[in-house]
């Protein structure tokens, strides 16, 4: 019989910090990329860093940050929601027409947008959970269906800024301490979701579901409720995004948010959220969204042909997932080595 305690008591403290480092490095890398891009652009044209320009940037980022937050919640559970662009369009149009025809107050408009989005999210969640349809297929289908509904409702009409109440447009263009309301709202939502995901049981359940669905079942996590919750959240935030869209642009037609899903998925992937669930943070996704917005705004300033923009986004997605895999493999190896060393 070997003596108790022969197995070294050394714990994997270092393993933990190593992974923390990687995660932090991930966010840090995004921040660095952002800083480098801003610095380079500013060097070419100093006005890029002017208050006006920064405000423009935040305006542009607000909606992507908001939608990326919702998308993260779904992607964490190994899902995806391709219908966000259509949901945004539907919510923007319905909110806009409610405002222009009935003239409801702004908070009620926001609630309407949230409700429309949540309803769409419920449909997605139900198809995914009860119908057992893979999220990709389900939301690809609802991408068409919801857009069709917008076409149906909107037809060829357009809501113009002049139809909307001034208070609503002020909300869309106003700032507080130089920060647009819209961006402040998006960041507030992001913060709430971030706290929810990291500090609440049901938030951790989402990570668990994405990390190991089978184990989640064994440990009694209510997968159905959580999945529904994730899709409803994502839908509701897309709906809220629709309200912001209407407020910011003033004009809403049936094509609002067309093709937006690609940008959102890109932001989330670039932000380090694993496409197959279980890992990533909304802060990362938010930074990813911000980075894409900065790229969009920097290209014209740098006099780079706008035609490059989409190619750059594509290259970024590829780079982000390849980098994650590389870092992941290295960390896994480090952890294994560590474990092996412990075992000796």
């Amino acid at each position, binding site marked *: 019989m070997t003596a108790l305690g022969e197995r070294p008591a050394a714990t994997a403290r270092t393993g933990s910090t190593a992974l923390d480092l990687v995660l932090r490095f991930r966010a840090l890398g995004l921040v660095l990329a952002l800083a480098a891009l801003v610095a380079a652009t500013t060097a070419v044209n100093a006005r890029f860093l002017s208050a006006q320009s920064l405000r423009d940037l935040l305006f542009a980022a607000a909606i992507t940050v908001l939608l990326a937050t919702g998308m993260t919640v779904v992607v964490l559970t190994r899902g995806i929601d391709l219908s966000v662009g259509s949901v945004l369009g539907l919510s923007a149009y319905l909110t806009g027409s409610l405002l222009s025809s009935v003239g409801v107050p702004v908070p009620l408009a926001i609630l309407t947008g949230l409700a429309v989005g949540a309803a769409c999210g419920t449909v997605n969640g139900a198809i995914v959970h009860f119908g057992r349809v*893979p999220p990709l*297929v389900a939301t690809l289908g609802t991408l*068409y*269906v*919801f857009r069709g509904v917008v076409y149906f409702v909107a037809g060829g009409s357009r809501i113009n800024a002049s139809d909307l109440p001034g208070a609503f447009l002020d909300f869309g263009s106003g700032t507080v301490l130089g920060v647009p309301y819209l961006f402040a709202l998006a960041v507030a939502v992001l913060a709430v979701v971030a706290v929810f995901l990291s500090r609440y049981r049901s938030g951790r359940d989402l990570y668990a579901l994405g990390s190991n669905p089978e184990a989640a079942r064994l440990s009694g996590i209510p997968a159905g409720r959580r999945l529904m919750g994730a899709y409803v959240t994502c839908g509701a935030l897309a709906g809220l995004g629709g309200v912001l869209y209407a407020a910011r642009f003033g004009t809403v037609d049936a094509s609002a948010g067309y093709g937006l899903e690609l940008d959102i998925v890109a932001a989330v*992937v670039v932000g380090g959220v694993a496409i197959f669930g279980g890992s990533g943070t909304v802060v990362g996704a938010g930074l990813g969204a911000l980075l894409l917005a900065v790229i969009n705004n920097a290209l014209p300033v740098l006099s780079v042909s706008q035609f490059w923009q*989409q190619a*750059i986004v*594509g290259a970024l997605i590829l780079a982000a997932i390849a980098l994650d*895999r590389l870092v992941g493999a290295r960390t896994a190896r480090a952890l294994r080595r560590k474990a092996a060393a412990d075992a000796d």
Partner: protein
Amino acid sequence: MPTRLRESALMRPLATWDAAVIAATAAFLIIAAASVEHFGTARNFGYIVLDLAPILLLALAMTLIVTTGEIDLSVASTVGLTSAAMGVMWNAGIPLETIMPAAVLLGAALGAVNGLFTAGFGLPSLAVTIGTLALYRGLSYVLLGDTAVADWPRDFTSWTLGTIGESPIPNVLIPLAALAAVFGLVLHATPVGRSVYAAGASPVAAAYAGVPVRRLKFWLYVVSGSMAGLTGVFWTLRYSSARADNAFGLELTVVAVVLLGGVSIFGGKGALPGVLAAVVLLTALQNALRLAHVSTEALTVVTGSLLIVAVLAPNLAASARRTLRARRRRTA
């Protein structure tokens, strides 16, 4: 063993789904021909064939890829990029006879990039091909900007649109049918096809049976890229217009028909005839709705709903069967 037999029939919902799609397509064609004015004409047949050609070309390779459990969302962007590249080459004075094979090879190269990232580096194909979807479309804008190259030789463009002699059979139907036959044979009657199903049903078990799963997937992406390149050639000549936004958004339609045709998004299940029927069904449905003056909105909703129903219906049927069986056992 009668119970066994019954169960075995029940265990193959996809085979029946396959048949259902084919039957639905046939029924739809008959009903539409009888009730929609101008639908059953030879001329409309030609239009339908031309409309379905790009979807079909892309769906052939996509069927194989989805059957292995992967996906290629970049196909439409690959069409756009090859089309844009054709425009650039044409403007550079390169003969069309060189441009056409070069476009297919370019498609193959673009597919190889997908294959490298997915099969080679083991990255999730969904994320990779969303990336190349943006990248390839972006590059086609870089190549051609918003301009169009339109002065394609009439000989070629009119052949693409023409029919065989005086018959109503479109010229393109022959190569389409030949390619469909080749893909059908490869998938259903060759060792490669067996490997495709095995790799999709269980990549691990397939590897244990000596199937070179990663190599297979890599080459399937190359094939998918080549088909997209070929589609780029067709698209350019059919519309006699090389533009960066050619075939924009077509990947969703292609994925939709493949799934509607009964191929499982998880791989390992599906058959080409079902996909072919789905291509015909979707194109003919759109055509008939247009002829019947049904609004565009309805088309969008129909496409989306079909896609969901295609996957939902077998699932619901399966769970209904389960409930039924459980009830039968309880009463027994």
